[in-house]
């Protein structure tokens, strides 16, 4: 079991979700985050006090997937999230040792 964690631009979320659903992914968890990276932020100015805001709104998507789907999922996310402009984000793949579905107690692939 792998966890695919993608940090993407907020307005790509719907496309990514749809793409993953098509692949048969049944669930995912989404967090509003702030990203710092190459993409530059903006400045804000209040009564002459100017300051830079380097953190940009991003969406972090976490999808637990079976190993055999991994490659497809990563590709799907890449193609659905890509705008080819700076700040499109990253995908991180990590290993999951165990998954449990709380409602049923099922574990492993069944739990997804």
């Amino acid at each position, binding site marked *: 079991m792998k966890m695919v964690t993608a940090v993407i631009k907020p307005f790509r979320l719907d496309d990514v979700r749809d793409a993953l659903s098509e692949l048969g992914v049944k669930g995912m968890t989404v967090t509003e985050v702030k990203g710092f990276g190459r993409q530059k932020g903006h400045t804000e100015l*209040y009564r*002459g006090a100017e*300051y830079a805001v380097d953190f940009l709104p991003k969406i972090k998507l976490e999808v637990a997937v079976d190993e055999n789907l991994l490659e497809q999922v990563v590709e799907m996310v890449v193609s659905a999230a890509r705008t080819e402009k700076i700040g499109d984000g990253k995908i991180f793949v990590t290993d999951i040792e165990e998954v449990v579905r709380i409602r049923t107690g099922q574990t492993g692939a069944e739990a997804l």
Partner: protein
Amino acid sequence: MTTTVITRKRLLLKGENVTARLGLFAALLLGSSGARADELNTGDTAWMMTATVLVLFMTIPGLSLFYAGMVRSKNVLSVMMQCFAITGLMSILWVFFGYSIAFGNDGPWWGGLSKAFLKGVTVDAMTGTIPETVFMTFQMTFAIITPALIVGAFAERMKFSAMLWFMGVWVLVVYAPICHWVWGGGWLGSYGILDFAGGTVVHINAGMAGLVAALILGKRQGYPDTAMPPNNLGYTLMGAAMLWVGWFGFNAGSELAADGVAGMAMAVTQIATAAAALAWMFSEWVVHGKPSVLGIASGAVAGLVGITPACGFVGPMGSLVIGIAAGMLCFLASTKIKRAFGYDDSLDVFGVHAVGGIVGAILVGVFAAESLGGAGLAEGVSIGQQVKTQLIGILATIIYTGIVSLIILKVLDRVIGLRVTDDDEAQGLDITAHSERGYNLTS
């Protein structure tokens, strides 16, 4: 008519003969009935009750929102709470002593205690053509908003208890006497100062007291390096809008009647405010490249402040100049000058109220002149002389409020301490002083 208008407010209260100033309508009544000049006029009374409501509306919710939007979210409630508690406390102190000190008798320095606890303010007592209860309550709302304005200077770091003590003492030993000097028959009024609705009494007074408080309390942790973005500029703009709306009660209400002078006060208030809002907005656009919500809101308030001393005396074109001047100069004071000096007047009480008040208090001496479209200066008084009178009033106010505010604060600091602990400041006053959180948007 003009020279009488100048002193309308004071004279009414000093019991002088006002018949001449009541206009044709009243004269008519008087003529046909021989009634005394202090007959109740329902139209004037209706307007003054409305004006009273409007001035209260300026403080709560207006000023509270204006200020609350500018602080960080961990202090949003604390600022509103301070304005609200001040509203309660000042009302009671005004009834007990304040009204009498300001409007009791007409000695040069204070009004004495003959009206303490509203002695004699009965259901039938009159002030000009309106019930004295209405006049008393109208003036009470001024005694509420003036201390509340100061809150912005020490926002985010003052102890709530110390704030209550300071304001309670201040309203009695600073506000009420200055109010008496100018409007209650005191020396500044007799001296000929023009202050229709409170340039000296309210704005310079509050702005200067705020500066002193900001200096004595010291800067907020992290100021000016840490970003301290306003938590909710929508609140601030809505608060500015409510101040604008309510200010017509403040300015046109200061005529104490629903007449032509009140009408002109309303018109010039609108013009100056609009001009100042645009002036600040365009100044910022030029200097910083973008017009901002905080800028236009601050500009509107600057214009309202600037026209306050002048509104019953100047004409439309005078008000336009006053508005533009107030907008631009308050912009400079609140952005450049504050930064240059480095004091932390959190929400620019000095930069907007003292500076705007000074601009208006000086320029009324110019634009009240009939040649410049105003209601006219007193007979034989030149523009230069009037401006000198204005400067004396400004200086007197600055010196008195500066020194006495300093003393009160120093004593309180020694006795109970003015400032919250560093930890409380870091965590925010909402939780630490009031055990509440401002926003809880996810349950």
